[in-house]
């Protein structure tokens, strides 16, 4: 097995996911997100997605929260591990491999985060910190939760984070147990606004 081959597998998965945490977890009310997400669907605010429905799990503690289920992605406002935040999860069709796929996952997440921050019904109460990010791959076949997957993913992930934040991440560590889906906790060492990160992505793409 060459290092190139071992990278290809985890990084070709369509199941990348990225999560940003809210600045004020105490201000979160899952129920109020349900009408917001329904309206996003109605007004077609999620670019490049075919949204299908909203699933609400407010009754389940530390669960998936409220989910917009799309054809090729899920958007969760979840409370996993008691840490509320917005998570983008790709489904089924890879939107680019490796660094490109990671960057696209970030872009989808940041666009949705910006929508939530600006959501009139929420009065600006939902803001995201960007100094901590989770990146994961829900694909146990291609990306089991272990150090080898991290080693395989790290170069592309480092490169994507550097391009996004303009400097290398402070740290990246495996944050999932062996039975959990692969998850990396990233400390970026800086917390630019969601808008600034979207601007950076546009500049890089431009």
């Amino acid at each position, binding site marked *: 097995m060459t290092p190139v081959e071992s990278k290809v*597998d985890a990084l070709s998965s369509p199941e990348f996911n990225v999560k940003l945490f809210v600045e004020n977890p105490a201000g979160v009310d899952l129920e109020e997100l349900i009408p917001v997400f*329904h309206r996003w669907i109605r007004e077609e605010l999620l670019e490049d997605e075919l949204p299908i429905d909203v*699933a609400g799990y407010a*009754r389940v503690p530390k*669960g998936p929260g409220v989910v917009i*289920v799309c054809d090729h992605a899920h958007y969760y406002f979840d409370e996993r591990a008691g840490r509320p935040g917005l998570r983008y999860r790709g489904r*089924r069709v890879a939107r680019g491999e490796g660094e490109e796929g990671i960057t696209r996952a970030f872009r989808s997440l940041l666009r949705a985060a910006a929508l939530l921050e600006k959501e009139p019904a929420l009065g600006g109460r939902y803001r995201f910190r960007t100094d901590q990010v989770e990146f994961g791959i829900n694909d146990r076949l291609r990306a089991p939760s272990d150090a080898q997957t*991290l080693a*395989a993913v790290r170069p592309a992930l480092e490169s994507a984070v550097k391009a996004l934040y303009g400097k290398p991440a402070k740290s990246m560590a495996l944050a999932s147990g062996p039975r959990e889906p692969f998850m990396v906790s990233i400390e970026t060492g800086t917390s630019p606004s969601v808008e600034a990160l979207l601007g950076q992505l546009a500049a890089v793409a431009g």
Partner: protein
Amino acid sequence: MTGGAMKGTWATELRDRIPEVLGREIDIFETQMDLRSRGDVDEKLFAETRLRRGVYGQRYDNGHRYDGERTRHLEYREHPTKGVDTMWDAPGMVRIKVPYGALTREQMDVLAALAEDYSDGISHVTTRQDIQLHFVHIEDTPDLMRRLAAVGITTREACGNSVRNVTACPLAGVCKTEAFDVSPYADALMKFLLGHPDVQDFGRKFKPALSGCAHEACGLVNMHDLGLIAKTRTENGKVLRGFAFYVGGGLGAIPHPAQLVDEFVTEEELFPLTQAVCRVFARLGEKANRGRARIKFLVAKLGIEEFRRLVIEERAKLPHDPRWTSYLVDVAAYKETPARAPGGLVTNGGQSAGFRAWHKTNVRAQRQDGYAVVTVKLPLGDITSDQMRSLADIAGEFTGDNVRLTVEQNIVLRWVSEADLPRLHAALEAVDLGQAGAETIADLTSCPGTDTCKLGIASSRGLTAELSKRVQELDLASEEALQGLRIKASGCFNSCGQHHIADLGFYGISRKKGNRLVPHFQVVLGGKWTENGGSFGLATLAIPSKNIPEVVRRVTGRFVKEREPDESFTDFIGRLGKAEVKNFLQDLTAVPAYEEDPSYYSDWGDPRVYTMDDYGEGECAGEIVPRVEFGLQASEREVFEAQLFLDAGDLPKAQDMAYRAMLTAAKALVQTEFLDIRDDANDILREFRTRFHETKRFHDKFAGPKFANYLFAAQEAGADGGRPDQVRQRVQEAQLFIEAAYACYEKMGTWGAPA
């Protein structure tokens, strides 16, 4: 498996862990998907095929969704459908059968992983001890099935017109009131019926359930197609085990109580009698009108006396099957092993109020001294993958593999040493699973309703989530008279939420106010949960969804105030009578104008303006597809595989598969007249020759016996290696033979000759 190393597929990774038969079945399903995606299999046939693999439709899979203002077309990629009006790319539901709800830690781990990898991170426990995963895409289902198969679970026959999950009391084996442990019988019955030829021709589904006793609720025998209550009888000083044997129970729009066929069927007679019931149902059950195709309608039509006579007559004709009694060896060997030694709870007053409340409602002493059963209360049956994994670890520490799902959408841990209860409670609390109030008025049950079900009319989950909050706020569970009551809701009259046997039951309907629709629930009061779902509630009034919490408040309040000493809720409602109940709730039927209060015009948990536009064609019933069509479809798949072998240059396999395909088609035809034909080439050839070839029924109008002769020639040629051109010809002949088999079947009429 190691880290980022190059992986094969789940099929290759799990090759050594998947039982051969299950692996083959899943491969076949994958091939059927492939054939359907090329348009080579009829959509109805494919729909029933996938249903029988547990792959179900879900709301909006017809490609339309109401967004609150208008109905939109969901622009899925162009692809053949996976059923009538069912988009291939639309996510669906997978139902995972868990026989008698028994799970191991390893299985829990896999379920947690599947919910994360293919669904939205939630496993949903159903009212029939299944697990459902929602928002699953069909292309993920073969791998999902493989990962389940590797831990001994099959989704086969979880949906469709088949024998559904075999359910049983979650307390079986540890309950103080049972005659004996029904667990190994449920397990054996499931294995006996799975894929049995006599259960392939049903017009509708068939649900079996087993109970250890008659008085408790656990097995809900009274509402099942086949219900078995454990009993013993002493003859000549010997204790015999057997079952009171019921058929024809069911809920649905019009509930039917099960009818007694025999008050004591010995364990040796259990399987043959069940088989005879299945044959009678397959032969005489309604096929054309699926609204009347459950066995309860057949029993009602014939009367139980006649039905019993037919079953006994059928039983006498059955060819002997050694499995009728060989399972008793497994029954005798069946044993559960606790993880810990028995112990006593030290009640030194030091326990917290939370522990005491939990202990009161969620802990039950076992028949075995020093052990208890603990109920883990789940909100409407939902559990996250993180919780599922933690629960597997908790089970590992405290109970071993003794975990079961319940029909009240909870999970029980059995064989907990009583000395460990405080520690166990703390461990459950740490993962938000230590909530008190199991099996009380605070423990509500709901079907998926409009959240995901195509047939949902109102939001049963939205309603029960709201009622859970209100019950808590009003602290109804602390009132002794109310504590044991049950609240259950269904999204429509089909009753998957079992509202008929709840004290307070609700099912979704819609009503018009002006030119707008308003979600309502029909209120059904006084059903009996005990005595295996002993009696059905009284349908009273249609009340707007938003007024249902007030119904609960009023009715429970009146019961507390006016009940006579020891009067049950069922009796209280009976005493009150329908007229008085109506009178008492009448004002709640009023719906304000939209302009006055628009909240009435949307449902609980769903802010969109209410509509029936999302209501779809249900798949509960599945498509009624005769067995012969499955056989012919299997032969088509085999000839397809023969072609693949040919393309890959594997001539011996191509030749053999082409012959097998012809045999499969021939057998399918023979089975329309001779159900018990063995799966033996000589038998099939002989029967085919006498029944179809010599009678000229298989002859083609122009080509005469030509196609039948392809089969006979293939048999004579045997497995001798042919040249490439000869093998190619054999594959082509197999294709023509199958087409002739279809033509023959069409001449016979839809259902073939009577079985």
